[in-house]
């Protein structure tokens, strides 16, 4: 228990009269891929938005890398090493690829090299963005393209690049394969395996159970705000997970 990278304990959250999370607990270890599955409205997104600091919980604690995780501060959460790839990708369409990868963490340099005014270091952003995209093996024409002009798969690559550029310890992916072509899905699954091999924890939220079973070490099914199942992927079946999700077990 003390060795867990992420330790979620008894999280509760209501929006008005609706109790979205009714005391959720689970752990993620280093280098472990945990699939978080559940129907629409089961509370997956709310849970993850609490972990990333976008929402505040009503009760409960989260311990990350041995320390209590502060709530409600997305910037601090990212600094600590938790990255999330959102289903809508959370990209600024009018900004270029490099700007999106460094969003919120732009490197600065002194104006003209010595003035006490700090400006965006565009060269560094483009150089590092190119390096990380080459590493991902993504097919992007150039880092100075507007993100809004790229295809869905290319935009996905930008969102992924943003999540892995700053050496995260935990990467949360919300439906990373939902909008992708078959070849691109395989690419994302490979990337998850690579993150795992580097000791990075991964939480994978997905409706596509075949994708989930291809990479996950453990399956956690959320139903109506509670954990309905928490089992090693090798010891369960797709049918069993489906019955946990819909509540027929």
């Amino acid at each position: 228990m003390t060795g867990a990278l992420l330790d979620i304990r008894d999280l509760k959250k209501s929006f008005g009269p609706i109790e979205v999370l009714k005391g959720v607990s689970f752990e993620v270890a280093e280098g472990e891929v945990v699939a978080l599955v559940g129907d629409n409205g089961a509370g997956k997104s709310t849970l993850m938005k609490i972990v990333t600091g976008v929402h505040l919980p009503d009760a409960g604690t989260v311990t990350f890398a041995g320390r209590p995780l502060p709530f409600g501060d997305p910037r601090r959460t990212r600094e600590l090493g938790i990255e999330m790839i959102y289903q809508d990708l959370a990209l600024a369409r009018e900004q270029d690829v490099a700007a999106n990868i460094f969003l919120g963490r732009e490197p600065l340099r002194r104006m003209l090299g010595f003035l006490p005014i700090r400006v965006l270091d565009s060269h560094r952003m483009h150089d590092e963005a190119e390096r990380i995209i080459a590493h991902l093996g993504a097919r992007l024409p150039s880092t100075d393209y507007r993100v809004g002009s790229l295809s869905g798969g290319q935009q996905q690559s930008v969102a992924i690049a943003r999540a892995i550029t700053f050496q995260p310890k935990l990467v949360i992916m919300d439906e990373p394969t939902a909008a992708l072509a078959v070849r691109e899905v395989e690419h994302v699954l490979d990337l998850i395996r690579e993150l795992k091999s580097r000791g990075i924890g991964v939480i994978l939220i997905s409706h596509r159970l075949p994708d989930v079973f291809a990479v996950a070490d453990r399956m956690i099914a959320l139903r109506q705000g509670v954990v309905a199942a928490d089992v090693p992927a090798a010891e369960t079946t797709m049918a069993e997970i489906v019955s946990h999700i819909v509540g027929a077990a």
Partner: protein
Amino acid sequence: MTSAAVQAPARGPKLPVRVESLVVLAVMTAAMVVFAPNFLSVNNLLNILLATAVIGVLAVGATFVISSAGLDLSLGSVLALTGVCGAALVVRLGLPWPFGILGCIGAGMLVGAVNGSLVALAKLPPFIVTLGMLSAARGLGFVLSDGRPIYGLPAELVFLGQGRPFGVPMPVIVFLAAVVVGHFVLSRTRFGRYTLVVGDNEQAARVTGIHVERHKIWLYVLAGAMSGLAGLLFMTRINAADPTAGVMYELQAITAVVIGGTNLFGGRGTVIGTLIGALIMGILQNGLNLMAVQPFYQQISIGVILVLAVWLDRSRAKGQAA
């Protein structure tokens, strides 16, 4: 990266201005050179800049707010209010002349902080908040001035409006300085980038750790400060703080911003574009004046240009999305 850059129009903007804006500016300037008597003289060009300066300073502030998908309709009223505040400090209270400058800009920032807090913290629509402020600031200006202009500004302040170092009117110098600094901040700094990103995808800004609320408040404070600067220029140019000053100026400033290519719904904008937009309006008015065209037609033509500019922008955006 090895694949050739085939989709050229998808690339990030290399020019800080839309080509269309430059073409319109060039065509209009050429037409005026041909048809308007005495258009092409240093004096007349300085006149155009002088006539554009006050609206232009407002428009620099408006560019930031509009780029963030916000709106400030109170700019003109705040211009009048800040003039009254600055003048009251030096004329009524007898404080030294620098307090006139501090009073104008400080009052503008205060009003901006109120606008910004209502938008960012109370989550009210910018249109409503600043429409309310348009009325409230105008009324407050009348209250503080008893409804009469405040005369008797010290010579140091009047220099800001009427001085001509090296033959260039001071308001023109201030305006161009505001454009240079504004363009630098919007295009080269974190503050500028976050302004555009908040306007582009507020949720993306939030989840990447940008303090969206704090940033929005600062944007309205900035717009207020620019209104204060414009108020200072206006007051010192006519040598009186007039509570009726600047009526409808906010609409002219917003028009200049939009003609200059800034997206009214946020995410895209440049201050240089706004300069071009303001110049297009200034040249049009000046040229039509020189050709002795009735002022009514100037209003019509500016309205037409505004709508055309947005139409052009829309059809271009559609072309890109397809």
